[in-house]
């Protein structure tokens, strides 16, 4: 820590100023271990992905990624500090070191991977942009939306996709753009717009905020690819590996049929793949710089990908989103993990 940083700390009050590790001074893993918690950037509230209840407990599939990382590093999934950020400040905050992993329904794109200096480590939800309309409007396809008014969240890929889609199809539209997603929902609900467009998952997850969710429907067209996944700062490959494999451990567990309930039995499974994943044999944990039972802890405390999905988005949640693209590759989806060996 430089003198300048010391002085800043003294001057500004220690609890407000966190001196995060830098690539040169200490690796992200080392600082994380020192702080005894994973600093995780999440959304300001998107049910199913990352949202907080009245008691201050966070949940969602994006939250589960951070919990998995904490389980892998500390053996305790609760050692996470959540830092909500808006879509505007998320990248600045990640770069500034306010948190070390951004797990906040963020679309992986070339510009972000390069010019914004991020590293997307995996895709934990395959999404695409869709439209929601009132049933009474009698619209069955997005191609019938010529001349419609759209409510959009400002500063997202959504805004650009919508403009591209309408231009490509020779249609016109009027954009009403809001800074916060809750305002988008409120404005759409009030009838200010004919349609509301965002990631399909967002449409489903925010639908419950509408006064009468049953009066609305999502149109069949998906107009863009939105692979959402956790991102880290470029330049710390070990840290990127830890996040990547903490997530893949959950997918691998689903592939191998391991879940939170049976993980203890599975430890004695003769299957070498399972043995490697759970740390019974091999040195996978060591290679990542983690404990041997890293994946065991993830599965035990957070569950496999299917459990996380169903708990937060699927049948066991009030969102009832089907797996679709996010099913395992063996079941017609895109979820696929490189081999753990």
């Amino acid at each position, binding site marked *: 820590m430089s003198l300048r940083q010391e002085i800043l700390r003294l001057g500004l009050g220690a609890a407000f100023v966190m001196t995060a590790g830098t690539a040169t001074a200490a690796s992200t893993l080392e600082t994380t271990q020192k702080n005894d918690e994973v600093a995780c950037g999440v959304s300001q509230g998107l049910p199913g992905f990352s949202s907080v209840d009245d008691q201050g407990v966070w949940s969602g599939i994006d939250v589960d990624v951070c919990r998995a990382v904490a389980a892998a590093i500390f053996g305790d999934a609760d050692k996470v500090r959540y830092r909500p950020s808006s879509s505007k400040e998320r990248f600045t905050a990640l770069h500034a070191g306010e948190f070390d992993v951004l797990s906040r329904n963020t679309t992986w794109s070339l510009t972000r991977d390069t010019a914004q200096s991020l590293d997307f480590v995996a895709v934990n939800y395959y999404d695409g942009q869709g439209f929601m309309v009132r049933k009474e409007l009698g619209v069955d396809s997005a191609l019938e939306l010529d001349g419609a008014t759209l409510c959009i969240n400002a500063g997202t890929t959504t805004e650009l996709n919508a403009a591209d889609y309408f231009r490509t199809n020779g249609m016109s539209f009027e954009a009403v753009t809001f800074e916060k997603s*809750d305002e988008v929902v409120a404005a759409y609900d009030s009838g200010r717009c004919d349609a509301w467009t965002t990631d399909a998952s967002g449409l489903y997850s925010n639908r419950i905020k509408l006064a009468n969710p049953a009066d609305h429907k999502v149109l069949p067209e998906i107009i863009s690819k939105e692979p959402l996944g956790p991102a880290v700062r470029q330049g710390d490959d070990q840290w990127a590996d830890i996040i990547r494999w903490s997530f893949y451990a959950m997918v691998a567990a689903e592939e191998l049929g391991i879940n939170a309930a049976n993980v203890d039995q599975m430890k004695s499974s003769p299957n070498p793949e399972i043995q490697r994943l759970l740390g019974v044999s091999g040195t996978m944990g060591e290679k990542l710089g983690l404990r041997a039972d890293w994946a065991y802890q993830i599965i035990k405390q957070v569950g496999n990908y299917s459990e996380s999905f169903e708990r937060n988005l699927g049948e066991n949640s009030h969102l009832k989103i089907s797996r679709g693209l996010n099913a395992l590759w063996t079941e017609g989806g895109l979820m696929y993990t490189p081999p753990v060996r």
Partner: protein
Amino acid sequence: MMLNWMRANLFSSWGNSLLTLISLWLVWVIGSGIVEWALIDAIFTGDNREACLVPGAGACWPYVGAKWNQFIYGRYPLESQWRVDLIFAMGAGALIPSMIEGMRGRRWFVLFLLLPFPVITYVLLTGGMFGLAEISSDLWGGLVVTLIVAVTGIVASLPLGILLALGRQSDLPLIKAICVVFIEFWRGVPLITVLFMASVMLPLFLPDGVVIDKLLRCLIGVALFSSAYMAEVVRGGLQALPKGQTEGAQALGLSYWQSMRLIILPQALRLVIPGIVNTFIGLFKDTTLVLIIGLFDLLGIIQLTFTDAGWSTPQTHNTGYVVAAFIFWIFCFAMSRYSQRMEKRLDVTGER
């Protein structure tokens, strides 16, 4: 009696009578509207949105009851809310005597508010010391954050504002220029751009690896912004003092800082108390802007509760806004009354 009064004050001429009738109509429309919405058609009991979904329903009061705790404390953990209550109690306990002129020991109360109180507040709110659980500022919200932003803004801007005002009055051209540029810059830009700056630009100005909490970044922005306004208020006080005061101090052989500390500032600051209170009222109202950068002040928390599906009804928005408006109004109205009273008092003493 009554009739005479009415004739003189309400129906003195044709035009006046017409105005009176229009006014009466306005009062009736607004008054009956409010009473109907807030009392007659309002829903008073219920456990969830079902209660307020009655067609033609007015205000949905049970929603306020259910969310009241969040309005005040945000997401501050229930078991630690006594810490906030303690701060409120201490603050009020010291503020009331320090506002009464002629109260014995008033000076000590003011001193307590300015020095140990902020430290105690800081320790109690954040915790992590003396066996108190640490509570991250992400969880702070509601009226607590509104008060923190407003009070910190005004307390931090006072010393800075005084220095800037002195600098602007100074004979030293370079210092004067710097102060003028600083003051005019902050007064010329909207607070929202300052807050954007604090949230997305300030991190770039810090050395690599130093991270400042979002709330603190916002506080820095607010303090800089209000210090410029404070400087202009203090300058007004400095200009109002007769020149004889400075000359007298010089004749006594006091240095610049001595004369400022002992003679000029005590008088000038007393004169500008109403101005300071008015700046505070403005700042208090402006704290609502922090919701735009994603902090949850009173209004921000109320908006957040709108997204709770369990309470979403056609009247939830209006009810929430009215509650917010009422809380803000009480604070601001009380403070503006206080500042008007001070103004009158100061006027009287000025005319001796």
